[in-house]
């Protein structure tokens, strides 16, 4: 992969500006923001360095020029403050879209998200239509504070919806849906996919519904349940194993689409849960719990988990490469599952 310098980190892949009918995952996100802002003046963006600078990863490049500083607002470095303020704006019926510079920084905004945004509708019928974009994941040599996958801390939190696009189409469609959605949505966009995933541009206005998982690849011998960066890893691995693999792309990791997961396992009788979040966090726990409770009788092998160890994300290339699930390591995990 060519390495393009992006901000102060390196993201693999070609420059974002594509010249064909294809667009990158990053462009899909930018286009979704742009289309939503053109259609609905309640939509505005706020975050660190998203205005003139265009964002640490360039996602909002050009939007300041089109929409101005009132709708593409640079904030002071205060995640707890501007996430809280976005919730207040959503309370008033606007459709704020927050960019956290890195998903890791969501720790600073944990309180307004779980305390204010998540609980408000249940106890007062007050809708909070806020979208929080979280550039997530590793493979960018970000180390312990810039490469994490913190979605697991929010999985299981009543009132939140959590989406993790694993394709260009869903990067666009889930973001449009998140902005329209009346509930708080955490949108985890994977930094490594920004410039490595390319596909035909989805039609303007395309929506990916929040909730349903997708069958990214149909198969009969084993199921991979995954999301985010795991989808492209699993697709590549599936092509390389000597078996017919089905891939469930969760897309929404909370609340979970139980039925699609269970239907796939009923068909294949073997399941591998693949995620980039360290093994005891992420979505794996709720997926495994579901499998243990409701798919036990359909299984021909113990449900397998392929995920990094329970450590922070390491920096050194040798360490990070060993830490992250790769196509090769996923092939090994599938072979083991199939051999049981």
């Amino acid at each position: 992969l060519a390495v393009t310098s992006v901000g102060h980190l390196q993201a693999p892949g070609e420059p974002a500006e594509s010249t064909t009918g294809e667009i990158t995952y990053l462009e899909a996100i930018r286009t979704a923001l742009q289309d939503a802002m053109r259609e609905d003046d309640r939509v505005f963006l706020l975050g660190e360095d998203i205005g003139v600078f265009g964002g640490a990863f360039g996602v909002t490049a050009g939007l300041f020029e089109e929409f101005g500083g009132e709708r593409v607002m640079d904030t002071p470095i205060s995640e707890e403050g501007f996430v809280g303020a976005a919730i207040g704006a959503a309370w008033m019926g606007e459709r704020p879209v927050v960019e956290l510079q890195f998903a890791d920084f969501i720790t600073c905004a944990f309180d307004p998200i779980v305390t204010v945004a998540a609980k408000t509708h249940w106890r007062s019928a007050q809708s909070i239509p806020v979208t929080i974009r979280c550039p997530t994941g590793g493979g960018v040599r970000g180390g312990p504070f810039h490469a994490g996958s913190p979605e697991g801390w929010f999985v299981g939190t009543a009132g939140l919806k959590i989406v993790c696009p694993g394709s260009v189409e869903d990067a666009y469609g889930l973001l449009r849906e998140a902005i329209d959605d009346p509930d708080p949505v955490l949108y985890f966009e994977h930094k490594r996919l920004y410039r490595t995933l390319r596909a035909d541009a989805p039609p303007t206005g395309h929506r990916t519904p929040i909730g349903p998982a997708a069958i990214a690849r149909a198969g009969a011998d084993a199921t991979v349940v995954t999301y985010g960066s795991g989808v492209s890893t699993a697709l590549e691995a599936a092509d390389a194993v000597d078996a017919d693999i089905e891939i469930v792309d969760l897309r929404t990791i909370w609340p979970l689409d139980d039925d699609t997961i269970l239907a796939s396992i009923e068909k294949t009788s073997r399941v591998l849960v693949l995620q980039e979040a360290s093994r005891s966090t992420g979505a794996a726990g709720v997926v495994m719990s579901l499998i243990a409770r409701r798919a036990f009788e359909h299984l021909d092998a113990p449900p397998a988990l392929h995920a990094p160890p329970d450590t922070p994300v390491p920096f050194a290339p040798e360490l990070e490469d060993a830490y992250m699930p790769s196509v090769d390591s996923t092939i090994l995990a599938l072979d083991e599952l199939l051999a049981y």
Partner: protein
Amino acid sequence: MPIEPCAATPSVDADDRIALFRLLLLQRLFEDRVMALYRQGRVPGSVYTGRGQEGVAAGAGLALGSEDVVAPLNRELACHFARGATPADVFRNFFGKATSPTLGRDGNMHFGAPERGVFPLVSMLGDLVPLVTGAALVFKRRGERRVAMTFLGEGAFSVGDTHEGLNLAAVWQVPAVFVIQANRYSYSTPVSRQMVNTNIAQRIYGGWSIPAERVDGTDALAVLDTVRAAVERARNGNGPQAVEALTVRMHGHAGHDDARYMPSGMREEFAERFDPIERLAARLALDGVDPGAIGRMREAATAEIDAGLAEAETAPAPDPGTLTDGVYAKPPW
């Protein structure tokens, strides 16, 4: 020492003086009643009161216009009444009834009224500062002449959220008004063990360049006058405003807390001279309001509370079958 009447404050007209007195009475009499019920074991959970702080709650609540929004804390019952809540609504919330403002999902002072622009209380101190800043940002964006208000205690000034929210309000110059209930304690911890400079107004102005005034929080007329001026400055595009209202929390943090950590006699001496209800009553008497009329207002407030309690006590309990309803505005399944 005799009770000290509220300052004359001629800028507050007769109707507002009477409205203010009614709000003070409702908070005091409601809280007396709910505390008695709590001690009888008839209220689940906790009871929080704002005894000694009613003047701030009522004055600031009355300073808002009907299109403004507010996020009260747990000592601002009179603010809820100013925004149209009824004693029955609040009793139902204390009892956890199906028809409470939170459908029994939350208790005591943790409730709001979306239809009246009242955000339901969040317990974590400071959370409401960025929240109302964001609401005020919307008013500014849309060019609406509306104001967003919240209350804070001294405790919130040790929380990072408060700094972030005040800073955003100042940088964005939004129409937010912050009313500080300076009641000298955060639970059991006196303000002297929370901050070095206890002049919060000075800190707000010095730290965030938000205009901040100090007012006697036991003088409800002065609070109304001062907060109303702050609200109008915010409404007129002069950016965020703050008012620090000095008072004393005359109860413990909650019903279970006898506040033995407060110096002996402090609250009694305070009540004798600065009880906000009696201060306003004394001023109304000086205004020439007939003592019989003041007495009738006390009776009317008591009757309103009696009726609210009777209604709330017979309200249905929530059905456990509804527990998961409303987690989402748009359930995905």
